[in-house]
């Protein structure tokens, strides 16, 4: 069974041979050499030039707090609704986004990696290709309007907020279509709906404002025979059932202990595939090798014992959160060691 088929079986609950593992290495010859996945990125339009340092293609100015983390947005291009009239949304349908080399920053180092299509032809082999949608809906709205402002808008300026959210959603629908043209097998949205304590907004408001938009994006991926993955940090327990209803295939969690691994397995095991790292705020950060191995094994047992349903992931920027390389090794080794499914022959 090749890596692609094994990943698809894990997602579809169809008896994979083993728990698939995602791992990105700083290896210029092939950063995906130890991975069952290749996660791919799109780049900016050729016509776009930042008007100030730290600006992204949407006009958001970032302060990256010394370069180790992604930082935060300090200037929001749509801080006033008046600016929306003249605002130009980026065009998702540019072939160059998937062709041109991509600028990457790791710490203070900046370098270029091959464009998406080149990466696929060079490194994909039989790997599962995952198209990165980038920072998706809620967070993109927060960056455009301001974190507090958009939350107020959803209650007080609903019509305008809906209009803006539709335009942002349209951008991502375009990116999904473009990923499909590259041959990607799935897409992943990055949208942190939760804080440490709960959702950014009431679950009912999430349902009214975000659910139908997620349903549209997920359907767009499914119509093109791709899976839809969602990365979401924080305590998002209250909307997992809604995400499953929308057709979400894979939930990527970096803080599984915050939500409770046993509870996730009891309430949602076998209904959605979990794609998790050992908790990056707790065990992976401070645990011993034995504790990390135990946590990895526990996730396989609780989330992956549904004839599939679990995939292991190494946090792709370990240096940004000071993860010890030996801890990441211990986790990946445990995923490989214990992540073997019942088999037809030995």
């Amino acid at each position, binding site marked *: 069974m*090749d890596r692609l*088929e094994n990943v698809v*079986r894990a997602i*579809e609950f*169809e008896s994979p041979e083993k728990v698939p593992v995602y791992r990105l290495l700083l290896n210029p010859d092939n950063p995906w050499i130890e991975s069952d996945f290749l996660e791919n990125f799109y780049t900016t339009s050729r016509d776009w030039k930042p008007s100030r340092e730290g600006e992204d293609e949407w006009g958001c100015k970032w302060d990256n707090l010394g370069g180790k983390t992604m930082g935060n947005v300090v200037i929001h291009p749509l801080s006033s609704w008046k600016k929306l009239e003249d605002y130009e949304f980026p065009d998702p349908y540019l072939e160059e986004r998937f062709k041109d080399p991509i600028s990457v920053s790791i710490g203070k180092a900046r370098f270029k990696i091959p464009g998406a299509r080149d990466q696929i032809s060079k490194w994909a082999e039989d790997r599962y290709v995952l198209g990165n949608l980038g920072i998706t809906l809620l967070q993109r709205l927060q960056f455009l309007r301001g974190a507090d402002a958009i939350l107020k808008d959803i209650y007080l300026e609903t019509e305008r907020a809906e209009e803006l959210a539709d335009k942002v959603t349209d951008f991502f629908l375009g990116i999904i279509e473009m990923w499909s043209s590259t041959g990607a097998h799935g897409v992943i949205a990055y949208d942190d709906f939760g804080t440490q304590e709960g959702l950014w907004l009431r679950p009912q408001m999430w349902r009214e404002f975000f659910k139908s938009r997620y349903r549209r994006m997920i359907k767009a991926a499914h119509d093109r025979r791709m899976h839809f993955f969602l990365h979401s940090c924080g305590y998002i327990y209250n909307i997992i059932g809604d995400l499953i209803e929308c057709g979400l295939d894979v939930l990527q969690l970096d803080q599984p202990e915050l939500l409770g691994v046993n509870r996730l397995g009891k309430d949602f095991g076998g209904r959605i595939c979990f794609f998790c790292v050992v908790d990056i705020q707790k065990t992976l950060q401070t645990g011993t090798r034995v504790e990390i191995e135990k946590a990895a094994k526990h996730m396989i047992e609780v989330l992956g014992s549904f*004839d599939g349903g679990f995939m292991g992931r190494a946090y792709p920027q370990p240096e940004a959160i000071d993860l010890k390389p030996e801890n990441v090794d211990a986790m990946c080794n445990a995923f490989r060691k*214990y992540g*073997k499914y019942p088999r*037809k022959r*030995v």
Partner: protein
Amino acid sequence: MVESQQEVRKLQGVVFDIEKTGEKKKDEEGNLWEKCIFNLELSGFSKRTPNEVMPPKLKGKKVRLFRWCCFDWHYRLGVKKTLEPDETEAVIKGEPTASVYW
């Protein structure tokens, strides 16, 4: 949804019992595996082939499936188990094989 190698139909059933046969083998990493019989009640085809409809005569049919198990979590009951394509076709044709019978 995703077309990887082949999009072929695979039957699934719910595991209601697992019998250990006592036959054991070690793999290349030294893990000890035991040959087991999974008793399944067929429930349908996997979701990758959503248009496949299970023949009515197979609904609820009980089959026995050989698999090798190694870890505690392999013995979970009440969860689905997928037959391989050759096993699926054997069940549909009503022809038992070395790995699936009833």
